[in-house]
């Protein structure tokens, strides 16, 4: 349950979008059309850029070694990070590199020169990666679609949970066992959103190792233990009541939540991280072994966010969109062979899954999550 607040994440990304994106990217050794030209003259005395101040945007640097036998390279740096460089320039040689630079203070560095560092300034607003209006509109639609999806899932979660808690209150262990996983599935699809609301996720979804004092432990997994391990629902009515109340509160909160494209993307990655850290290990549903149902719900939630972003991502980076689509299909195919009818789920008992298959599932989820983690920056304008 790593909690990355939606609000916090959103604020961070909002600030980010004003500053840097694509910083340090750009094809080297190829002058870009419309780029500002800067000449760096390399001598034993130093490496002064000319001009020393340029507007934000593409910049092509030409480094010329005018007889400096002590120096052979120049680098453009931001802080301690090398953004671009030209090396092995013996006297008389020159070379170029191009970068897309945002506003800010940079330095030109030439090791072993008398003055080895010279300031270089980029002015103006960040012009990096301004997305076309059509893509912006697609992203707006994605955000709207995701908001609707979250509300839909939580709307389904309320009665599904109620059916489960009714069985708990009625003391019907077998019925409650069948209704446990189906109710959770709605929650697991939108878990990163729930996690953004402070204590709500721990109250609903904590495992016993997440709480200091087991007597304060509430939520789905407390009842799961009663059903599968204690085989007694004694004392569970207050827990069931509280679970209903917490889910009702969640429904109110998601009605007014706001999202950004990057939040969708990061939320999707976070769902897959959840799969890797708690589902595949079998920690999530340790008493019921219904982990595969949660696994599928997490993947579905991630897929939904990705599907909504796909039209925009296809315009921004089609290769990335294709890779991710393929890897979602790989994960789905791997899950498909584990279909079953265990405990009200569409899957087999996770306790019967051997280490080889768990390892294979981890590898497929990792292969998906890696490119998925690149999406947020792509859809951040």
């Amino acid at each position, binding site marked *: 349950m790593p909690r990355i607040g939606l609000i916090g994440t959103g604020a961070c990304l909002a600030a980010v979008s004003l500053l840097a994106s694509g910083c340090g*990217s750009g094809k080297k050794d190829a002058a870009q059309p419309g780029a500002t030209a800067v000449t760096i003259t390399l001598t034993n005395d130093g490496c002064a850029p000319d001009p020393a101040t340029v507007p934000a945007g593409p910049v092509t640097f030409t480094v010329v070694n005018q007889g400096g036998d002590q120096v052979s390279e120049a680098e453009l740096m931001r802080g301690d*990070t090398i953004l671009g460089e030209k090396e092995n320039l013996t006297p008389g040689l020159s070379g170029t590199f191009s970068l897309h630079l945002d506003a800010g203070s940079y330095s030109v*560095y030439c090791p*072993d020169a008398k003055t080895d560092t010279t300031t270089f300034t980029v002015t103006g607003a960040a012009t990096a990666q301004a997305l076309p209006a059509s893509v912006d509109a697609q992203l707006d639609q994605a955000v709207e679609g995701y908001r609707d999806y979250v509300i839909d899932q939580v709307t389904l979660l309320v009665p599904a949970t109620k059916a489960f808690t009714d069985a708990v209150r009625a003391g019907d262990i077998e019925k409650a066992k069948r209704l446990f996983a189906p109710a959770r599935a709605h929650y697991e699809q939108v878990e990163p959103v729930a996690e953004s609301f402070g204590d709500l996720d721990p109250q609903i979804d904590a495992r016993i190792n997440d709480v200091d004092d087991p007597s304060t432990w509430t939520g789905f997994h407390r009842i799961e233990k009663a059903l599968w391990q204690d085989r007694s629902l004694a004392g569970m009515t207050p827990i069931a009541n509280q679970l209903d109340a917490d889910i009702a509160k969640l429904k109110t909160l998601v009605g007014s939540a706001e999202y950004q494209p990057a939040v969708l993307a990061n939320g999707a990655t976070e769902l897959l991280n959840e799969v890797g850290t708690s589902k595949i290990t079998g920690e999530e549903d340790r008493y019921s072994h219904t982990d595969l149902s949660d696994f599928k719900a997490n993947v579905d939630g991630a897929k939904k966010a990705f599907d909504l972003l796909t039209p925009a991502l296809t315009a921004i980076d089609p290769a990335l969109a294709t890779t991710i689509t393929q890897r979602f299909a790989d994960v789905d195919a791997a899950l498909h062979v584990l279909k079953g009818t265990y405990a009200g789920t569409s899957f087999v008992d996770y306790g019967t899954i051997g280490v080889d298959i768990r390892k294979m599932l981890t590898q497929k989820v*990792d*292969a998906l999550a890696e490119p998925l*983690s690149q999406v947020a920056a792509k859809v951040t304008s």
Partner: protein
Amino acid sequence: MTTRRAVLGWGGAALAGVAAGGAVTAAVVGDGHPGDATASEGSGVVDFYGAKQAGIATPAQARLAFATYDVTARGTADQRRAALVEMLRSWTRAAAEMTAGRTVPGVNTNPAAPPADTGEAYGAPPANLTITFGVGPGLFDGRFGLAGRRPAALADLPKLAPENLDPERSGGDLCVQACSDDPLVAFHAIRNLARLGRGTVVMRWSQLGFGRATSNGAAQETPRNLMGFKDGTRNIDGADAALMNAHVWVGSETDQPWMLGGSYLVARRIRMHIESWDRDYLADQEAVFGRAKYTGAPLTGTREMDTPDFGADGDDGQPLIAGDAHIRLAAHENNGGLRILRRGYSYTDGMLPASGELDAGLFFIAFQKDPRAQFVPLQRRLGQHDALNEYISHVGSGLFACPPGVSGPADHWASALFA
């Protein structure tokens, strides 16, 4: 930063004109005493580009991070092959940067994106980092349409009794050997390659090593293995071009021109039964190896570098170096001139849960022209007769064809194999 860059220049200058192409280090190598490993090391840069891959003739660095990978790319043979080549391009670019002490290529400063480089080696000098790549026999099954390019010398290793190989620690479609004087830098290399390969490969097994168990350079004092004996006294010196060409680098004899200038890597995870060894009496330990424990001298001499006299008998009429002594069985004089370049490391993975004994030993790595004619007959002989067998078990194994070096930024590992 200044230091790092300055060293870069110096490394490049020192490398020019060295024989055997690129596979050399510019570093002042440590004197080899265990514990001294980092005293005079850490700042060196080994050239990545060259006719030969670095990390073979290169004097052994203090630390090893070794990993093997299985290719999982799907689709038709052409699609799988394209995915693999694409990954090798990104691996090669990343390896070139990392060995130069720079970060993995890509954006590291966009607050909305995960940094391209994982960052733990940021600011650390490469410490003679070399990254050496190889392909295993599995690559030449039907998956990539490469069946016709399998070198005869890459024949699967036969059973070499006594061995007790764990499939979880054996084999692999690809291997990467990262060596550095800084363990963090070596680990950083295999970690980042695994990340770049996600979706195309999965790691099959991995081994960290320390202690540079084997000397392969005249400049290095011979280090000791975990049995407390000097190891590698008579190893091939990586700077000896004639020996390297005779025994290590693949030459025109190869049936697969893409391996010209390459070498075959055999890895064996050799567990030492440390508890038993440690209670063996000194004279027997020395008889097992055929050397004196502290000086490293052969039992027929007084100094480490004395040539063993395998014909010399003691007062009792028995050979001074016993018939089953390790150095007798391994010596090139007794194997028709057969030699290999050893480049192994000590390892420990803590304790064996089943027994409570130490899980430690030698991660043996050897390079050669043709394992069928070198490692296999040598190990067969050792397996049958070596007194050391009482104290060791071969528990993991790997065989890889390491292609020639990468010529420059436009080239990539094993490009001739896929051409």
